[in-house]
């Protein structure tokens, strides 16, 4: 466990080092740039609050991908499920007006259902026609994107009357998530969802069956696990997490469906899951880390004149380094442990 954590952190360290080399070649001061990044994403409660809020969709789509990958299904439909969750929350939010204590859970449920439904389509197609969820979820992304775009296009069925840009009417005020102090309530919802999914995955019978099936489906099937039903449930849950990400973004930021909502998060979830090797806790950590990078990027650009695109370079380097070094680092650590053992036994012999 400690070793796993260490290789994860070492991956980040190596990536930052390589980023520093790039910065030096560009004639910049790496410490200054990283300092600005850190200060502007984690510097005070205010900035931390923004980072955490930005982390919400990253972590939820990341968990969506990690849960699926670790349990077997290859759900690459986070962008589409995100949009359908956002759409469902918006639809309910503009057609119902209830006090916040009722409205918030209702919209959250709608977002969960929207994402689950979209993933469920892929699961059903696999069940009925043995169509690979890998392809279907990917293609449903485009369907969801075009469908939501059409709904809110000017004069579209869900467009706000008289709006100058493609967008839906705003949701009722009861469904809007405010702040507790500096921190947006969507952070709390995300944390609860992350805890819940971690508990289910690691502490329940169902989670055990998902984990085993994710490693060796045939073994799980022979052991009596209902792997087909589990596949379905995991797909729905994975979709629900991505849908929740979309719903929370609507409820805490835009208050409506707008063109291109979530486009920034489209593939970040899969990326984070890959970097985290589909481990749930690591997904949360990496989600926060990437959110910090993205949050600090703008301010860094202002302070140091390093273009914020540098963060995208850094992200890509982190992905490559962490994936490439995963096997190598643990082998290295094993070897170090071995050397220590040899030394100990040599001492013991004396």
């Amino acid at each position, binding site marked *: 466990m400690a070793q796993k954590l260490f290789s994860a952190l070492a991956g980040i360290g190596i990536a930052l080092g390589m980023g520093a080399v790039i910065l030096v070649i560009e004639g910049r001061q790496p410490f200054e740039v990283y300092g600005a990044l850190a200060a502007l994403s984690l510097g005070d409660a205010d900035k931390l609050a923004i980072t955490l809020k930005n982390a919400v969709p990253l972590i939820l789509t990341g968990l969506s991908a990690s849960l699926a990958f670790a349990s077997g299904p290859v759900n690459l439909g986070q962008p589409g499920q995100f949009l359908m969750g956002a759409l469902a929350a918006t639809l309910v939010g503009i057609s119902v007006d209830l006090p916040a204590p009722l409205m918030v859970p209702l919209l959250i449920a709608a977002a969960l259902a929207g994402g689950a439904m979209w993933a469920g389509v892929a699961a059903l197609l696999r069940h009925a026609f043995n169509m690979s969820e890998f392809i279907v979820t990917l293609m449903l992304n485009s369907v969801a994107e075009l469908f939501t775009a059409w709904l809110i296009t000017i004069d579209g069925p869900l467009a706000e009357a008289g709006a100058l840009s493609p967008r839906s009417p705003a949701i009722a005020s009861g469904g809007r998530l405010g702040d507790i102090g500096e921190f947006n309530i969507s952070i709390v919802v995300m944390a609860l969802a992350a805890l819940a999914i971690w508990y289910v995955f690691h*502490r*329940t*019978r*169902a*989670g*055990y*069956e998902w*984990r*085993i099936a994710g*490693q*060796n489906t*045939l*073994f*799980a*099937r*022979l*052991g*009596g*696990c*209902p792997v087909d039903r589990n596949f379905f449930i995991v797909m729905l849950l994975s979709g629900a997490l991505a849908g929740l990400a979309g719903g929370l973004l609507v409820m805490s930021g835009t208050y409506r469906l707008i063109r291109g909502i979530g486009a920034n998060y489209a593939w970040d979830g899969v990326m984070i899951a890959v970097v985290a090797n589909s481990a749930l806790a690591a997904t949360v950590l990496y989600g926060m880390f990437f959110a910090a990078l993205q949050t600090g990027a703008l301010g860094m650009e202002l302070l140091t004149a390093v273009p914020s695109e540098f963060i995208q370079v850094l992200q890509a380097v982190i992905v490559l380094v962490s994936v490439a070094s995963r096997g190598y680092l643990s*082998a290295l650590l*094993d*070897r170090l*442990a*071995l050397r220590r*053992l*040899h030394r100990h036994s040599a001492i013991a012999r004396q």
Partner: protein
Amino acid sequence: MSDLIDLRHITKTFPPNVTALDDVSVSFQAGEIHAVVGENGAGKSTLMKVLYGLQRADRGEIVLRGQPVRFNAANDAIAAGIGMVHQEILLIPEYTVWQNVVLGAEPRARWGALDTRQARQRVRSKIDAFGLNLDPDALVGDISIAARQKVEILKLLYRNVAVLILDEPTAVLTPLEVPQLFEELRRLRDSGKTILFVSHHLEEVLELSDRVTVLRRGRKVDTVPAASTSKSDLARMMVGRELLFTTRRAARPPGEVVLRINNLSLRDGRQINRLRDVNLEVRAEEIVGIAGVEGNGQFELVNAIIGLIQPDAGAICVNGHDLTRAPILERRRHIAFVAQDRGRMGASVNASIAENAIMTHHRLNEAFSRRRWRLDMRQAAAFAERVRDQFAVAMSRADQPFRALSGGNQQKVILGRELLLDRPFLLLDQPTRGLDVGSTEYVREQMLSQRDARRAILLISSDLEELFSVADRIAVMHRGEIVADTPIERASLEQVGYWMLQGRDGSAGLTGGSTGSPTGGSTGSPTGGSTGSPPRSADAAGAVA
């Protein structure tokens, strides 16, 4: 003869603290067949991998023809004249024999194009030079496993190696294919090649090799000339103690029918019959062995019983419960199952030992199902420790990954898990495959004691000696049919061998005497029920050993 290869003080430790080789020194002479034997985990494969450059030794040196050498990769070893044939055969089925052989070392024509004619010719001449019975133009996908193994050997001969390392070459062969391989290996030796041969089949070792090196737990025990040793000597050196021979106690007659299979038929996607009208009964307190050349329907029979495939016709009942169309979980209420492929079917090697130990129990064992949807990993660890204590598993902690266990200990965990399910019927598919002598012995003891605990056991094995040493009845499968079903004491090794290869006609090949009766299987054991128990004597096992 002079020393061709000298391995000196080879030490290899795998992180974190598994010592695979501990100061091993062996020398191999030119033109000998040298067997390296030992239990699983004794270090024989590691030693060969170090020699072949697949693994680097921590200490020690390799001296080849008097020169210290250091191989960083298999290609270095091949360039130095040392080649290895692995257990798994890695060929391209869509390519012909000669295409596979030249792959990676193709003769070039102008512009770097493949010189087809020359390539074919060179392969042809190697085949002729070493008298291998191979057609260079056959598609590898069409030829037998034995022939593919020959292609692997040919690949190395084509690269002009002087030393051939064979890792368990007979594991993939049928009994009748082994003598041919041995004959060809002897011919290679006589033409000056050195052959290093890893095995734990002692008969084969004694028959084939000139000298034998025995490893035990990473250390060399001794190197002895094969002519001056015996099977029991080698076994003692390998295990470090005398092997206890199982006594087969005279048991009560078998009880009521537990497994009943009626007219089971199965066709595959190409409408080829995989199972043809299979009828089989296994009674309580009885071990029924299924013999057959691999690929004659045994795997399909196992899969149909456990529920991975649906038969086209017929019925499967355990203790009167019709399981023909039942979901797997329902079947597991009645069936304990040890699959032939540990890593693929019997376990998840990356999961922890505890997670592997509680499979099926997590749903069907009351201790776990009382909590319904929660799963307590401490309880799982405690259960794994129970498996460890009851089945003598060598492991330190239940949260270690399953793959950290040796093959024998993995199988003990799997066997323990299944036996603790406490089911009336045990389906054991090749339960001792790939296990060392000690673990094999252990698994067989467990089978016998389970039989004596009134369980019904169906044992599928490609090891005829195993069937003859534990089974009470033996059924032979040939092309999806049960062509013979006979009490063990009425069967002979030769007769069963003929049935395996020739089907029903096999009985025509031998005359009268001790042959069993091919029944077509419908009545199960012809004598078992009515005339009381056939005597289960140690002779049956003794006669073939």
